[in-house]
């Protein structure tokens, strides 16, 4: 009997085909979905993007941050500042916001990378608060009460409301595909191997010449830039920004951590499962106010006790499944051996 070394399995091939079909169906959503659904879908994509990015940082690079709202808010504010005062097209402003976030994340990283574990987490939160307080001081952007995106700028996106809504939808799904593909190919590259090695055993990786500090910095910078782009898109959907909303630790970090932990940290599939569960709970329970938050907390506690590796961890362990093939596996087959 011959064996073959491969990354894909029959399940992963099938699942990927189903997923590709789903993406195609979702791409046609502006033709069949109502206004409210379109908006909800857009929000789901943006949350899933944030979850994937946080998962890359915490689950693969070991950078457990509770301060990524700094970059969500930064991206949002850059959209407003650059469109209102520099007269740039909103989409260009969002991309520029991502680049600026990358630039600002480097000095931030040199500061907070001195901290480890829980101290690092708290440090990132402090940085986010500094961002919030700083933007609240800028009266040109509405200070503490915030500002709205002027109508002329909104209209520069597209003339009709429905055209704007489908553009906003495509930007959201497009950035999700971009974020997901970027992470997937990063993890499959040599750099991904180094990243996994750091997660498994930091000092053993360093001994082999892996520059742990720089690898983490690269992940932090890329994640922060993409998070700012998602932040820009979030506030392009909302059309209004304020320091409280832009730098909300609940909205942009606590819910995102919930999604990743419930779904399964350190897996590509986890954030997808987590996002589905989060939105199912939110859409069915949001009317109950604080009770809804208590139920979220309860779900988190139960999952952490019963399935510490998240729901996807539970499924993949029991059935040895992987939708996005990252591991190698040996397959028995009739074909000749290949490397």
């Amino acid at each position: 009997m011959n064996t073959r070394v491969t990354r894909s399995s029959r399940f992963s091939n099938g699942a990927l085909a189903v997923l590709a079909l789903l993406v195609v169906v979702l791409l046609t959503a502006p033709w069949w979905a109502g206004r409210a659904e379109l908006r909800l879908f857009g929000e789901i994509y943006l949350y899933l993007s944030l979850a994937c990015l946080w998962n890359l940082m915490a689950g693969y690079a070991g950078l457990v941050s509770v301060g990524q709202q700094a970059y969500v808010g930064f991206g949002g504010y850059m959209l407003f500042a650059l469109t209102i005062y520099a007269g740039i097209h909103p989409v260009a402003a969002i991309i520029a916001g991502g680049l600026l976030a990358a630039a600002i994340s480097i000095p931030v990283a040199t500061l907070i990378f001195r901290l480890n574990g829980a101290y690092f987490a708290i440090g990132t939160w402090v940085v986010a608060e500094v961002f919030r307080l700083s933007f609240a001081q800028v009266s040109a952007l509405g200070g503490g009460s915030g500002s709205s995106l002027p109508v002329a700028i909104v209209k520069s996106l597209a003339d009709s409301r429905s055209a704007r809504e489908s553009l906003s939808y495509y930007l959201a799904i497009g950035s999700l595909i971009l974020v997901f593909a970027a992470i997937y190919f990063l993890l499959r590259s040599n750099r991904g191997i180094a990243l996994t090695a750091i997660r498994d055993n930091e000092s053993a990786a360093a001994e082999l010449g892996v520059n742990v500090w720089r690898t983490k910095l690269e992940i932090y910078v890329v994640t922060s830039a993409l998070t700012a782009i998602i932040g820009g898109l979030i506030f392009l959907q909302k059309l209004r920004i304020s320091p409280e909303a832009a730098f909300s630790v609940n909205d942009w970090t606590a819910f995102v951590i919930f999604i990743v932990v419930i779904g399964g940290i350190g897996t590509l599939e986890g954030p997808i499962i987590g996002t589905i569960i989060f939105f199912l709970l939110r859409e069915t329970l949001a009317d109950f106010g604080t009770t809804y938050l208590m139920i979220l907390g309860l779900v988190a506690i139960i999952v952490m006790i019963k399935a510490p590796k998240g729901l996807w961890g539970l499924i993949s362990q029991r059935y040895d499944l992987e939708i996005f093939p990252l591991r190698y596996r040996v397959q028995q087959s009739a074909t000749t051996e290949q490397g």
Partner: protein
Amino acid sequence: MSSLLEAQALNAFYGDFQALYEVELSINEGDVVAIVGANGAGKTTLLRSIAGLLKNDAHSIRFNGTPIGHYRADKVAKLGIALVPEGRQLFPSLSVEENLKLGATVGRKGHWSLHSVFELFPILKERRAVASTQLSGGQQQMVAIGRALMSNPDLIMFDEISLGLAPVIINSIYEQLPQVINQGTTAVIIEQDITRALSSASRVYCLQEGRVKLSGRTDELTRQQITQAYFGVAA
């Protein structure tokens, strides 16, 4: 012969605890040096200091004349010092082949490649797609050695090379050792088995409570001298 690696007045600390006291060490190119000593004598600390996993005074360690005591581990690795760590320290999420490939991160050219490592340890080629955790202890040690060799080091250090391995596996690893070292590599071996350390090494350092108690050419020292330095009492 020129000195490849030198330690001068090397003091190493874990927080407030001092693990090495004024250690002097000199390793010539092409040497095989054995470091022996009881548990807690500072053998592993010495290797961790050289590998850059413990920060030291810059001038306390020199490699080819360059002070490296303060270097980070990845910088030390790029200079050509590789460590086969105690307990193998393989990456459980990665396959055998990925573990080996990581060894080539530093990008140093030389004899060792995936091909030549598979030639040295043919069993690894067969098992290259398997997760490293599914290997036997001996095979894991082969991966750890192969991974260190992939960086084509000038100096390779083996920490507790035979710890936790069956005698027959230890024999086969020692049989391969000359092939490993013959490619122009200098080696440091930490070994609990004094007899084996003396037979495979040209020089020996005996550590006791963080200090070098005895050092010299293996053919000039008596077994009794070493035993005394090892235990600190006349045996």
